[in-house]
């Protein structure tokens, strides 16, 4: 794996991209902050140091990389940049790996123990994978940058709202609920009444005028039969009882007239 490839500029100074840092580590003081800001943490800084030297991650020279890493840290501290704890943690880890590599390892331990660099390499590789993935993702055609939603002004909008459907079962369900509640609280006693009478009450009320009298007989339709007549009659009585109607008879046996109470 050649880790160097094309690395994107790590910083911009005065509009000039800085792909790499001068070997002698001289950085204009005002640019340093910008430069260090460009690192996304210790792993990123390490990867940068490794790539800069064109080294494979697997050949990572711990001593040299540790030395360079510490130099950066010193620089950062000299600049009084607040060092994130992660940077210091990494420094400690690097030092530990270095010392473990220097220590002679007992023969029998060698078989079980992994190379002390292995975990560092694993993390560097893992991070590098996602760095690359982020670059690849950034290169995807992106809405608002590369492609744009095509649109045309919609025509005059006719707002249509389709009313929700209701089933008779829903209605009955609702009624059941309200009745149960009413009964439970004893608020209201709903008496049973033939629906046809209540319907007729509505019809009669609608038919009647508040200003003009309507002949009583006009409310009856013989074609409805005896039952219909009874229903109408009961509806009129109920309306009278509820004081919704006014009944007028000028003289006995004269035609009865009705009108809505105003």
């Amino acid at each position, binding site marked *: 794996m050649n880790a160097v490839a094309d690395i994107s500029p790590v910083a911009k100074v005065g509009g000039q991209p800085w792909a790499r840092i001068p070997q002698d580590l001289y950085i204009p003081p005002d640019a340093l902050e910008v430069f260090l800001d460009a690192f996304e943490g210790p792993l990123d800084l390490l990867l940068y140091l490794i790539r800069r030297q064109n080294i494979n991650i697997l050949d990572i020279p711990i001593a040299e990389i540790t030395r360079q890493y510490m130099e950066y840290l010193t620089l950062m501290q000299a600049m009084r940049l607040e060092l994130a704890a992660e940077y210091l943690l990494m420094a400690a880890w690097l030092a530990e790996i270095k010392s473990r590599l220097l220590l002679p390892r007992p023969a029998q331990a060698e078989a079980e123990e992994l190379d002390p660099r292995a975990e560092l390499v694993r993390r560097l590789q893992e991070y590098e994978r996602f760095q690359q993935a982020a670059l690849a993702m950034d290169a995807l055609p992106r809405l608002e940058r590369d492609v*744009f939603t095509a649109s*045309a*002004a919609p025509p005059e909008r006719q707002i249509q*709202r389709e009313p929700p*459907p209701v089933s008779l079962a*829903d209605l009955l369900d609702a009624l*059941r609920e309200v009745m149960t509640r009413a009964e439970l609280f004893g608020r209201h006693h709903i008496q049973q009444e033939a629906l046809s009478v209540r319907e007729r009450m509505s019809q009669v009320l609608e038919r009647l005028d508040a200003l003009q009298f309507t002949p009583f007989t006009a409310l009856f339709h013989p074609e409805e039969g005896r039952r219909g007549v009874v229903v109408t009659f009961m509806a009129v009585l109920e309306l009278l009882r509820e004081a*919704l109607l006014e009944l007028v008879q000028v003289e006995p046996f004269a035609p009865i007239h009705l009108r809505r*109470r105003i």
Partner: protein
Amino acid sequence: MILEAVLLAAGEPLSLERLLDVFPESERPERDAVRKALLELMRDYTGRGMELIEVASGFRLQVPGLYSPWVSRLWEERAAHYSRALLETLALIAYRQPITRGEIEEVRGVSLSSSIMKTLQERDWIKVIGHREVPGRPALYATTRAFLDYFNLKSLSELPPLAAPRDLDAIGATLEQRTAQARPQTEFPDV
């Protein structure tokens, strides 16, 4: 094609100046050339799902009014469900009509929002048929012909009889059964 792309991406009218500005100075075409290209586009779009028109602030791509029936359905609000309060109110009006708002409130035990009555009236399911002669002259509500039609009823007497709450459970079960049998093909019978 550049003009088409730019107009499509803009989503707003673009003046001739703005259209010219999308070209770097060195490659900027003549005003007349752009105008001519726009006229050609206008012609090209005949019979298409879009048209190019000139409005006060420039050139705009729009969907012809012809397509409005389909386009409008895009934004149609999905049929939601009516609230329990609305259904209870409707049930009470159906079974106890003519009825005042106060009477509905009394049975339901809560005050009734105006929006419910408005919705029911807008849907043409209820109407005011008079006023009760008590102080305040409250309106009396009743169901309409449209209400009966919607529920496939010839008259109110075809509504399941109003009985004691316990019996309503049984009626509900029967009704559901019947409805299910009557319309085996539809999943959600709307009656």
